[in-house]
């Protein structure tokens, strides 16, 4: 479904991503794990068109995303839950969700999808008229996910959904990610919390200073000595 081939990205003279190649198949959860500054977010931004690539190619459902503007990429069914949630703080919960459906025209389906989001996140329904900036961190993350779901993505990119959340909430969020995947959305997950990410993913790639150093089935990587030492705390 998503095919990234020898991606190179530069920030000025800094070579941020070296020959990154990976793929995501339909129905999978694939995770990119790695430390701070390994290039995880850069990779996501490159896919969603926020950062331009120097060389290499990205294919999504058979079409290239190279040089395609971010809004067109969203229209093609690839949407991102941005890092740090980035909800629209001064708008209400409902207005945030409406923005999620911004690219869609099918009003009746949109209405159904609001219900879908509310049944997945009952807490958002309780706070439907509340200004989003006053939600708790966990609720904001739910809103960010719900908002992205409103664009009906085929592939959802998630950037550090566990960031800044209490462990219990992290568990809840990851449960939700699994459910979203089960109901048919493919997920590419970027995480520092390697333990949680590996527990729900099918396959994983390990990034280190802009290079992919390891790849494989998530379960196997979780047993890998190298990974254990570097990312799982022993």
């Amino acid at each position, binding site marked *: 479904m998503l095919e990234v081939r020898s991606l190179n990205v530069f920030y000025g003279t800094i070579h941020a991503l070296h020959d990154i190649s990976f793929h995501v198949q339909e129905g999978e959860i694939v995770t990119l794990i790695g430390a701070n500054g390994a290039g995880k977010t850069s990779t996501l931004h490159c896919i*969603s068109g*926020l950062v331009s690539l120097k060389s290499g190619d990205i294919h999504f459902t058979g079409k290239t995303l190279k040089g395609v*503007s*971010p*809004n067109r990429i*969203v*229209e093609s069914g690839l*949407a*991102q*839950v*941005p890092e740090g949630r*980035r*909800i*629209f*703080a*001064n*708008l209400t919960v409902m*207005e945030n969700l*409406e*923005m*999620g459906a*911004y*690219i869609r025209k099918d009003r009746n389906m949109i209405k159904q999808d609001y219900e879908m989001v509310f049944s997945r996140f009952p807490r958002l329904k309780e706070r439907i008229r509340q200004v989003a900036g006053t939600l708790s961190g966990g609720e904001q993350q739910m809103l960010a996910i719900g*908002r*992205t779901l409103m*664009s009906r993505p085929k592939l959802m990119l998630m950037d550090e959904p566990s960031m800044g959340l209490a462990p219990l909430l992290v568990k809840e969020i990851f449960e939700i990610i699994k459910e979203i995947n089960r109901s048919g959305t493919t997920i590419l997950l970027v995480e520092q919390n390697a333990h949680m990410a590996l527990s729900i993913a099918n396959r994983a790639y390990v990034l280190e200073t802009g290079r992919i150093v390891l790849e494989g089935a998530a379960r196997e990587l979780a047993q890998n000595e190298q990974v254990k030492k570097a990312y799982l705390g022993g």
Partner: protein
Amino acid sequence: MIIMNKRVLTFFKIAGLILLGLLIGDALIYAGIIDEYTAQILTLAGINVIIALSLNLISGFTGQLALGHAGFMAIGAYATAYLVMHIHVPQHLWPVLVGISIIIGGIITAFFGMVIGFPTLRLKGDYLAIVTLAFAEIIRVLMINMEGITGGAAGLKGIPLYTEDINLGPVVSFTWIAVFMILIIFLIRNLIKSSPGRAIVAIREDEIAADSMGVNVFYYKMFSFTLSAFIAGIGGGLYSLFFGYLNPTMFNFMKSADFLVIVVLGGMGSIAGTVATGFILTYLQEFLRVLQDYRLVIYPLILIFIMLFKPTGLAGILEDIKTFISKKISAKAIRKTGEG
């Protein structure tokens, strides 16, 4: 039987009310109950409101700070003046020429807005503020030097007014400007409630998030900025026929600051706040002419205080009063039911 659509009905109601207000205003001025001086202040306030609204569109709603709306105003003013002075039409077509000239003045201004927006709005951050600030100064200096068209530093004299009839003068200028102001209020209000409006507000809230929602950020920033320039140009055009005289020093940085103060004081992103503050400040300025030279001191102080204590401005204060009152009422209701 004709079944009227509810929306059509409310439209007619609102249109009727506005027309009634306009007629009453005209009648009061014509009968001399509102004296000529006050009528002039009201008219000037209308122009200030129009340009402040245009600034609110780009800075308050889209979140892109612009500091040179006096420059746009100047372009609109000189362009409109040039047109009405050089095109000659029979008497009965004069209002048509005025209307068309003002619109063309706005279009020319919008073109300048596009030219400076195109390179600047691609960048994130406050580059627009710097560029618009410089742009307004460049325009002012150009106006001083292009003597053939603008009359240079001596100013442009002899711009025809809305009407030659001295008795009707105040009524006619008031009507022209009130009509444009009402149209622009509706334009901006409807825009903000529409889908492009949602995109614009999303850009203000968070550009990256707007991007991830599929909003074409650059396009909508350009759209908003160009429209803002267009409206400011119209404000300038209305101004030139109201005064009949233009001088580049009218469009200095303090003029841009005037509009910014109206927007910030009224509340960024509030149409009602801008309209109310536009009228209040224009009125105050007339009465505090003694303090004119101290504006440079007073305005920054006002801005700092607003930013520190009430960043939502007048609109925010009104909102607070509303919630305060509704709380009081509900508290009273609870007490009553408790006693009963």
